[in-house]
């Protein structure tokens, strides 16, 4: 919201790793305790900075996966890019008790809070689920009456991040529906979609346009632009569609 836009300049601060958890073979969640964390809004991100012994800095941005209800605990989910400079360190070398430099929270555009209402339509491609998961977790804690649908595209069953938690939340949290599509490999008996997101799938899963849903799309650039273009063609107002695009660099 613009009304909360005055924040002050961002400075680097230190967080301590208090937990790490593998999510899939290529992704890991890292929970930091950040003293003095001012709180964040679901959808925001942080920048991380690694400094080598010779003073060389590498910076990367990662979405926050945890809800603001976790207070000073900030969880990021990092996808390992084998050729990357930063993500292999974060996923392989980082341990509890290590300190990391970060600045944030950053962003106010790709943000959803329970007070913004719904119905909510979330569309994730791969690790694009991360900021949307902060929204889903926040909804469960603070806004369970907001009807929410997630369409989540992954390459294979094993690459679905937060799969068990999403299953649990759809059981325990009425009004949350999750539809998966797998684009490369499907296990025997798979009941979900088995193709890339297309107009028929979006028409099936999205709230009807006359319900004026709030839509958030996050994933690789072609995924996001494809889904946003299809939704615009189906009659969804662009003012209610927010997008966040990223590339798989590491």
């Amino acid at each position, binding site marked *: 919201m613009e009304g909360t836009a005055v924040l002050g300049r961002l400075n680097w601060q230190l967080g301590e790793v208090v937990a790490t958890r593998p999510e899939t073979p290529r992704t890991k969640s890292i929970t930091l305790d950040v003293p003095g964390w001012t709180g964040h809004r679901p959808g925001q991100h942080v920048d991380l900075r690694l400094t080598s012994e010779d003073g060389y800095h590498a910076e990367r941005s990662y979405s926050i996966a945890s809800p603001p209800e976790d207070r000073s605990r900030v969880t990021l989910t990092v996808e390992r890019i084998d050729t990357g400079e930063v993500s292999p360190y974060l996923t392989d070398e980082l341990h509890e008790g290590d300190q990391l430099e970060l600045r944030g929270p950053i962003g*106010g555009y790709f943000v959803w809070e329970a007070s913004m209402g719904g119905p909510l339509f979330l569309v994730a491609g791969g690790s694009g689920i991360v900021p949307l998961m902060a929204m889903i977790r926040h909804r469960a804690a603070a806004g369970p009456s907001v009807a929410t649908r997630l369409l989540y595209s992954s390459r294979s069953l094993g690459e679905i991040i937060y799969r068990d938690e999403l299953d649990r939340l759809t059981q325990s949290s009425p009004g949350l529906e999750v539809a998966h599509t797998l684009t490369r490999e499907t296990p025997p008996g798979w009941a979900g979609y088995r193709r890339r997101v297309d107009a028929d799938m979006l028409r099936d899963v999205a709230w009807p346009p006359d319900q004026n849903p709030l839509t958030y799309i996050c994933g690789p650039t072609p995924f996001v632009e494809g889904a946003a273009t299809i939704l615009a063609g189906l009659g969804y107002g662009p003012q209610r569609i927010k997008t966040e695009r990223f590339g798989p660099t590491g």
Partner: protein
Amino acid sequence: MQGRMGRENKLDGNASAGTLQAIFPFEMTEVMVTCAGCGASNVIGETAAYVSGMGTIVRCPSCDRALIRIARLEGRSYLDLRGSRVLRIHADG
């Protein structure tokens, strides 16, 4: 968001926000920028951003003009705004 600040890659303006907010004391993704070339206005979160080790370029999604260029060198930030006619910053909160 994953690894947005790696090698050059077309991202969106959200990826430039941390760098901008280290300079400007405001939330920057909702700042409206008017292109000095084509006159289109977009919030920075909706622009295109190219981020590399050399720096960050925010481009107009309508005409691709460089709206904002930021480089960092030896502890200084270099900000080139010649592609932006107006930045509308919500700053009275």
